[in-house]
């Protein structure tokens, strides 16, 4: 859920803003290594893509609905730093322009939905990639698990903020069970869509998937024997 204005108290919104600013600063430094002139538009495309995916709401349980977060997908496609920046841009545009998620809660939304999802999701991808056979197709199951866990992790981060600065007085246990419960289900949907998207991109254009870069073979030039 995009946190609206007034849901988390002002001091903690500032804390969220500080965490988000530091996180985005780190990502801006890191993204310089990931991006070159050719990949800058790729980052924009990933942001547009995540934006389009976030518009697909699917019903979860009890009349609530969830939508994809896209953090793991973005991290796998363009790298963790740039991925987090892509989701940050999406959240900023949604808050300022589409009124989805509060302007003062933007720091909290960036922390939970851009930073936590990419750190957790991509961390798991890197971990699993080391365990799985060294070929590009291994990224697909890794992305599945990464996405699966990143969504409840994001919900957990939200509950953390709520515990420290929630304004609504609901019991913490109830919020924890409801948020994490719903987001385990959202995580399954996220995992399926992330894995199938990454799967089809890996099959057709593995060069567009950042997470497969470690498998790239250096270009080998073989010379034929010159006839004397």
């Amino acid at each position, binding site marked *: 859920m995009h946190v609206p*204005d007034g849901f988390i108290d002002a001091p903690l919104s500032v804390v969220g803003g500080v965490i988000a600013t530091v996180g985005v600063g780190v990502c801006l430094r890191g993204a310089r290594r990931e991006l070159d002139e050719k990949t800058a538009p790729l980052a924009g495309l990933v942001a547009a893509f995540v934006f389009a995916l976030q518009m697909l709401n699917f019903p979860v349980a009890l009349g609530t609905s969830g939508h994809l977060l896209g953090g793991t997908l973005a991290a796998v496609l363009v790298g963790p730093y740039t991925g987090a920046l892509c989701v940050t841009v999406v959240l900023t545009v949604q808050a300022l*322009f589409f009124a989805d998620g509060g*302007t003062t809660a933007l720091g909290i939304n960036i922390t939970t939905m851009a930073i936590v999802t990419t750190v957790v999701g991509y961390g798991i991808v890197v971990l699993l990639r080391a365990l799985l056979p060294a070929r590009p197709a291994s990224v697909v199951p890794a992305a599945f698990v990464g996405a699966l866990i990143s969504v409840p992790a994001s919900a957990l981060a939200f509950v953390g903020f709520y515990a420290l600065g929630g304004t609504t007085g609901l019991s913490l246990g109830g919020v924890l069970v409801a948020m994490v419960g719903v987001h385990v289900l959202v995580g399954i949907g996220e995992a399926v869509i992330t894995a199938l998207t990454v799967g089809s991109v890996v099959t057709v254009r593995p060069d567009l998937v950042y997470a497969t870069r470690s498998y790239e073979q250096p270009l080998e030039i073989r010379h034929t024997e010159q006839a004397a």
Partner: protein
Amino acid sequence: MSAGHHHHLYLDRASLIHRLPPQCKIAAVVLFVTAVVTTPRGSWWPYAVYVLALGAVAAAGRVPAPTILRRMIIETPFVLFAVILPFASPGPKTDVLGLTLSATGLESAGILLAKGTLGVVASILLAATTQPRDLLLGLQRLHMPQLLVQIMTFMFRYIEVVLGEMNRMRVARESRGFDARHVGHLKVVAQSAGALFIRCYERGERVHLAMLSRGYTGRLPVFADARSSTGQWAMAALLPLVAVATTVAAWATL
């Protein structure tokens, strides 16, 4: 976002608010919402002042009330959440129309709805009076990091590409008799998402090369002189000033 590309959120009017430089409007919205959020618990009159202030902005920007009301549908998820609060919150109970409700829950729900709705309306007014391209320029002038501005520029540019391809693929699926009914169909939708990505990337690559060949260097070209004068900043400051004064008064009279 060149001329001729009009975003569906933008209302093309000639008004005082439309003419304000985008950086002033963004700063005003952020400050206004911050003031609203810091309103103390227990005083209700400030919200009336905020609503009047936003109403004045809407009138000055010639944004009709039905448009604002229609766009407020975005806040449905947290309205639903607010409805649950009086039933789920602990604390002393009161009777309202025969229902036993939590008093603190009722108060929390009211505050959440008031603050959340004001934030939503402020964003709606910004979007209705500012073109996406100007929003980018405004953020650039407010010193948002260049890389973020660049990603955002491409995002706005590619949203149309993504939505166009998405629509084309949906028509293709449906003309072959596809109708998403149960969970098993998720696979088809997700595979379309993969194909969508590759098709968009390949189109996006051509768009980018076309931009580079026309001299794109990564920064947005500034066509009109959109620097902001002191007078414009003073006018944009009216809304947040009213809000800040109201919040301060509310804290003082608490």
